[in-house]
Structure formats: structure tokens, C-alpha cells
């Protein structure tokens, strides 16, 4: 079936093209939006354009209107005046005709009919007449041979409304107000119609006859002039707008380029280059901005330096204190040990005291160690001692270390290890410490139930999840668990006697590797901690080989149809990247 195939192919191509166009358009729009948002110059130029276009349009319309009005009204007034004078002349002549009917024509060449005579005067068609710019039509349809016209004007050229108006006017007082009408009229013998102002008026003779007098004033020149003016206004306005835009562009560029330099300098400053300074040139506002910026940068650098020193001093102090505490602690410890070993020789009270002292000294000691570790992180002094290891071995070693404790809590470990080695470049000691902490934590809160330890790996990362089935975490506690000295339930007694710094240190350890340490928990469902480490230390993590939420919980949730997971953002580090 080749035809349908072709058809389908074509349709798909079309859809692809459409999709491509849409994509491209969206991309272009995005680019434009981005450019718009980022360029102050563009914004200023655009707003200048918009404002100047508005102003120019308004001004242009006003100006054009004004010129229009003055030219047209001026010409109209002049035309009306001339028309009026002509009508008066006609009226005089025709009335005179009645007065001295019998009087013969005076001049040899003067026509006998006064209408002809006055028309000669008006139209300039007499011997010494000069050409007028307008044409006249005198119409008296009621009497034979009493209608005249000049030039090529025909009665048909009179605009209909004007004639009707005049006819209505006949009943009223004639010679009153003339009626002006503008129309495009095509005169006989001309190829194009011209804009013509027609002024109609009535002349009534005492005898009762009423003459319609129409004056035709050509307005094509005025129209030509006005259209020239309009064109000039448009051209000048357009030029003005472009000019303003160019000026705005120029001015903003003058302002923006130093601001841009300042921004770049600020960005470099922000990225830690405290030596970044702006070049100060001149004494204008921008120069002062640069100077202020430099001052600010200088002060900032000074402050940062001071703070650094202060922090250095403080850390040194914490470190020193920890160290200085150790020597007496060693003495005390040794003494306590001796006493403890010899407690059987003591009285019962003294013996118990020795025991207590021994135990608390141990706790004191580990607390001190953890404090020291934390202070090391705070000082940024922690360094990785990387080695390529099989994470399974590390897990097994950590479990081995925890087994004694597990036995004490009647907790069993359930191990889920992959068969192939999970090699990763990690600091062995730190990872083991993390796992130890997690395991201790799981044992402590696992309420004797099984602790599941899962190891997973993919191309980029390895992950270890430690899951207990204890009381779990309340919503929001997933991040709190990593806080220093945080306790899930202050009223609960510590059984193992952790320092309260273990998870915090673990978190720091994971972060040092460029990895994540995240917690999940639900009341009654237990807790799961997941450690994700990149195979190459410091590489960016994109995801974890293991889910943060235990699979059985996830499955149960899906069955219930609750598609919105109650999953809360686990930690600051991994929240955004968690794809499980």
C-alpha cells in the first residue's frame, strides 16, 4: 500500500515541520524575552521609542489638523467672500435690468443682456478681463435662456446635496447664508475628478426670479499642499523618532557601559576575587559610583579579612581548647583506669564511683573527639584521604564493628548486597564512620527490629541505604536529624549514649565527598537513611542508584492510588536532584 504510506509520511513531515516551527518560535521568543530582560539599553530605547512615537503622533495629528484647519478655513473664507461679492454683483445687475429695461446697451461691445454683462465681469471673459481661478454657474431653470456658466462647468456638476439644500432654501430668505460643499467633481473634458469647493447661493431678483449661483473653487492645490505637509510631518516625525531612539541608545550606552563594567566587577567580587576594582575616570556620577564601588569592595575585603581572622582565631581557640583539655583528660583517664582496675579492693561505694567515673570519662572523650571533628569541618580543615575501595567491604566492616551493639539490642542485620564489586574513590575512614553512625543510629531507634542495609551502584554513583523499622520520623524531621545535638524526642533516654553529633559529622563527611546523605521517615514506618557517593570523588551527582523511600512503602502508596508522594525534600544538597 504505497499511497497511504506516502500520505502518512507526508502528514508526519508536516507535523514535524509545524513542531519545528513552533519550537523555533518558542525558542526565539525566549531569546527575545531574555535579551529584553537583560538589556537595560533595549528597554530604555524601546520605551523612548514608544513614548516618542506617541508624542510625535499626537503632535503630528495636532499640527496637521491645525494646518489643515487654517489653510482650508482661510481658503474657504476667501472663496466665500469672492462668491458673496459675485452674488451681490449679479443681484445688482439683474435688479438694474428691471429698473431700466429699455435702456440700450451702452458700449459697443457690451452685451445687451445684463446677465451676460455681469457674467463677463465675474468670469473675466470680457475684453480686458483676467482669468479667474474659479468657475461660476448661474442657474435659473424657471426661465429660458437665463442660465450661464463659465469654463467647463455643467449643471450636472453641482453636488446633489448642495442643490437640494438650495431648493429648500428658496422658500426662506434668499441671499442668506451660502452653503459650502466640498466634493470630488469630474468636469467635462477632464480625465480625473478634482477636489472642488462648491459654494451655492441664491440671488433673487425683485421680479421674483431666483437664480442659483454656484461657485466652483478648485481645491486640488490645497489638497496637494496639505498632503505634502502631511507627508513632511510623517517624514519628519519618523526621522525624529529614529533620532530619539538613536539618542536614547547613545545615552543609555554611555550610562549602561560603566554600569555593565560595575556589574561584571561585582560579579567577580561575588565570586571571591576581592581584589577586583573599577577604573575611575572623570568626576561624574558614574565615576563616583565606581569610586564608591571600589570603597565598598575595599571595606568588604577588609571586613572579610577581619572576619576570617576572627573565625580563624575562634577555630584555633576551639581546637586549642580541645587539645589542651586532652592532656589533663589523659591523666584523669589513666588515673581512673587504675582506680577502676583496682575497684575490687575498694569499698563498694568507692568502687561504684570508680565505675561511674570510668563510663562518663569515655563519653566525655568521644564527645570531645566529635567536637574536634566538627570544629575541623567548620574550619574547612577537613581533607579527603581518597582510596579506591569496594563499598561492600566498607559496609561489611562497619557491620562488623556494630555487631556487638546489635547483639545487645537484639537487632539483626539484613544485608542486601550486589554481587559485583562497587568500587568508589572514597575516604575509607570517613565512609566507615558514616556507616557506623548510621548503623548505631538504626540500632538505637530500631526497637529491636531488623535493620536492612542495602547497597546499590550505577555508572556514576554508589549508595548505601540503612533502614530501620522503628518509630520513624515526623514530617519535617528529615532535615532536623542532621542538626547538631538534635534529639527526636527529648524525653527519651539515650541508650547508646551518642554524642548528638554523629549524624551531623556524617553529613559533613558525605558532603566532603560530593555525596548526599538523606533521610526518609514516616511515623510508624521507620526511617531510612541513604548515603549516595559519586564513584569519582567530587563529581556531580545526578541521581542515586537507590530510592530514598523504601520500595515497599512506595509500592503500597501506588496501590492506594495516592499519586502525590508525601515525600518531603530530603536535604538541602540532594533535594533538587533526587529523581527517585
Amino acid at each position: 500500500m504505497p499511497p497511504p504510506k506516502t500520505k502518512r509520511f507526508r502528514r508526519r513531515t508536516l507535523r514535524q515541520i509545524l513542531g519545528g516551527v513552533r519550537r523555533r518560535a518558542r525558542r526565539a521568543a525566549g531569546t527575545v524575552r531574555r535579551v529584553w530582560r537583560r538589556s537595560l539599553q533595549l528597554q530604555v530605547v524601546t520605551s523612548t521609542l514608544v513614548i516618542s512615537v506617541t508624542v510625535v503622533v499626537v503632535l503630528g495629528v495636532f499640527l496637521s489638523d491645525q494646518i489643515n484647519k487654517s489653510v482650508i478655513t482661510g481658503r474657504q473664507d476667501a472663496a466665500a467672500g469672492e462668491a458673496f461679492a459675485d452674488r451681490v454683483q449679479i443681484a445688482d445687475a439683474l435688479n438694474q435690468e428691471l429698473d431700466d429695461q429699455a435702456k440700450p446697451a451702452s458700449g459697443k461691445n457690451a452685451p445687451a443682456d445684463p446677465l451676460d454683462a455681469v457674467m463677463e465681469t465675474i468670469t473675466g471673459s470680457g475684453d480686458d478681463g483676467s482669468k479667474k481661478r474659479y468657475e461660476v454657474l448661474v442657474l435659473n431653470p424657471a426661465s429660458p435662456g437665463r442660465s450661464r456658466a463659465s469654463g467647463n462647468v455643467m449643471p450636472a456638476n453641482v453636488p446633489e446635496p448642495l442643490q437640494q439644500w438650495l431648493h429648500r432654501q428658496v422658500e426662506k430668505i434668499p441671499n442668506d447664508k451660502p452653503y459650502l460643499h466640498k466634493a470630488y467633481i469630474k468636469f467635462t473634458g477632464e480625465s480625473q475628478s478634482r477636489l472642488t469647493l462648491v459654494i451655492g447661493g441664491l440671488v433673487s431678483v425683485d421680479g421674483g426670479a431666483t437664480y442659483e449661483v454656484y461657485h466652483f473653487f478648485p481645491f486640488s492645490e490645497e489638497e496637494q499642499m496639505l498632503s505634502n505637509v502631511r507627508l513632511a510631518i510623517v517624514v519628519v516625525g519618523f526621522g525624529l523618532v529614529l533620532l530619539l531612539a538613536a539618542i536614547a541608545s547613545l545615552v543609555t550606552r554611555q550610562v549602561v557601559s560603566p554600569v555593565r563594567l560595575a556589574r561584571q566587577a561585582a560579579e567577580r567580587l561575588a565570586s571571591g576575587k576581592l581584589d577586583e576594582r573599577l577604573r575611575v575616570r572623570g568626576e561624574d556620577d558614574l565615576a563616583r559610583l565606581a569610586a564608591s564601588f571600589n570603597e565598598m569592595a575595599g571595606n568588604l575585603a577588609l571586613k572579610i579579612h577581619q572576619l576570617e581572622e576572627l573565625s580563624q582565631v575562634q577555630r584555633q581557640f576551639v581546637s586549642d581548647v580541645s587539645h589542651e583539655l586532652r592532656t589533663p583528660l589523659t591523666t584523669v583517664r589513666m588515673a581512673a583506669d587504675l582506680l577502676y582496675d583496682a575497684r575490687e579492693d575498694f569499698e563498694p561505694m568507692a568502687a561504684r564511683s570508680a565505675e561511674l567515673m570510668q563510663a562518663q570519662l569515655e563519653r566525655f572523650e568521644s564527645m570531645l573527639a566529635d567536637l574536634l571533628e566538627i570544629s575541623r569541618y567548620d574550619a574547612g580543615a577537613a581533607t579527603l584521604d581518597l582510596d579506591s575501595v569496594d563499598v561492600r567491604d566498607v559496609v561489611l566492616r562497619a557491620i562488623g564493628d556494630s555487631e556487638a551493639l546489635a547483639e545487645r539490642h537484639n537487632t539483626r542485620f539484613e544485608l542486601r548486597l550486589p554481587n559485583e564489586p562497587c568500587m568508589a574513590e572514597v575516604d575509607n575512614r570517613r565512609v566507615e564512620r558514616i556507616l557506623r553512625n548510621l548503623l548505631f543510629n538504626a540500632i538505637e531507634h530500631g526497637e529491636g527490629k531488623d535493620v536492612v542495609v542495602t547497597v546499590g551502584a550505577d555508572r556514576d554513583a554508589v549508595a548505601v541505604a540503612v533502614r530501620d523499622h522503628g518509630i520513624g520520623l515526623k514530617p519535617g524531621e528529615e532535615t532536623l536529624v542532621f542538626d547538631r545535638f538534635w534529639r527526636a524526642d527529648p524525653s527519651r533516654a539515650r541508650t547508646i549514649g551518642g554524642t548528638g553529633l554523629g549524624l551531623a559529622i556524617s553529613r559533613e563527611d558525605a558532603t566532603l565527598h560530593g555525596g548526599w546523605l538523606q533521610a526518609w521517615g514516616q511515623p510508624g514506618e521507620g526511617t531510612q537513611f541513604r548515603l549516595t557517593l559519586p564513584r569519582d570523588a567530587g563529581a556531580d551527582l545526578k541521581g542515586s542508584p537507590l530510592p530514598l523511600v523504601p520500595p515497599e512503602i512506595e509500592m503500597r502508596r501506588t496501590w492506594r492510588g495516592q499519586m502525590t508522594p508525601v515525600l518531603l525534600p530530603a536535604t538541602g544538597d540532594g533535594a533538587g536532584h533526587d529523581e527517585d
Partner: protein
Amino acid sequence: MKGRVLVVDDDAALAEMLGIVLRGEGFEPSFVSDGDKALDAFRDTRPDLVLLDLMLPGADGIDVARRIRAESGVPIVMLTAKSDTIDIVLGLESGADDYIVKPFKPKELVARVRARLRRTDEPTPEILQIGDITIDVAGHSVKRGEETINLTPLEFDLLVALARKPRQVFTREVLLEQVWGYRHAADTRLVNVHVQRLRAKIERDPEHPEIVVTVRGVGYKAGPA
């Protein structure tokens, strides 16, 4: 197996306590509290082992260790309040064989001291050959050809441990146990530092070791890779 132990510590209480513990274990401790006087005391007392506090008035512990090491291969165990790698590596590189981080238990101290003292006890006549290095175990000497290489006892023990089973890979933990006598997990940095020190002495090109070879992810072995 009594031994003389020189305790170099400025803290009088700790020194006295150490003395009590050591005497209780049958050692003969002698004390010096000033780093400058430590070397004189060492020469006077000729101890079998030196317990050296890193933080001392006068010349600090590292200087003292270096000076002692310059004269003698006597085992030096450092006492340090600092567990940072840099401090420990510095101490070990200056010549110390082992270190104990404060606070420590008396038993731990005694165990370390014993471990350091024990190894000198049983000499076995044995000649080991590894690469172009000849090791006379009984004579406690190492030679490349005719050239004698001076090694500390610990370094010597490390080299012997590796050389006895050439081509076998030793993890750091195994080495710690065999050479230092630790039962439990301890600081593998000890091994790293000492392997480096050993290489500096016996390898022709320490950057490209041929005698003590690293096996990535596992540990070290003797002989060419």
C-alpha cells in the same frame, strides 16, 4: 622483658601518671620535661624506648624526634593531642614509629610500648633478597650491593614483613597488625607514612617505586609489580 623508657613530657601530672603506669607494668621510666634537655637525657639514660609528647617547651617534639632519630634507631612513640592527619604525618615523618592520641587508656599505652619493645627480642638468622636489595634479618642490615642503607627498626620490620612473602599483597590492616602489632582497626596513615619513608630510603626513584609497590584499592606488596 623490662625496659628503660624515657618519658619526654612537660606535664608533670601526666608524667607522674605515666610513671605510675609504666612502673606498674615493670618498666623503668625516666623523665625529662624540656625538649632541649631531652637529647641529653636520652644520651644519659640510653632508653629502650622514648615516649615523646609533641607539644613541648623549648624544642618541640618533632625536633626532638628528629634529633634522636639522627643518633639512634630506638623506637619512638609519640603522644599527641592532635589527631589531624597533618600533625600525625609530620610526627611520623620526623622519625616516630608509632603514636598514641590523647586521651588514651593505660592498657593501650602499655600495649604499644610492649609492641615496640618486643620486636627486638627474637632475631632469626635469615637473608632476604628483594630486587637489588639484600636484607640480613639477623644482622639487622639492608644493603644495595655494597651500600648499606640505614633503616629504623620499624622500617626494617616493615620491609622484612613485605619481603618475607614477595608478591603477596598486604592490606594496610594486615601490615598494621604484623608490624605494629595492632589488633584492631587503627590508623592506616601510619602505614602510608612509613611506606613512603621506607621508599625514600630504599627505592632508586621514590616516585616510581620498584621494591615496595602499591596495589590500588588493596595495599602493598614487595617486588616488581
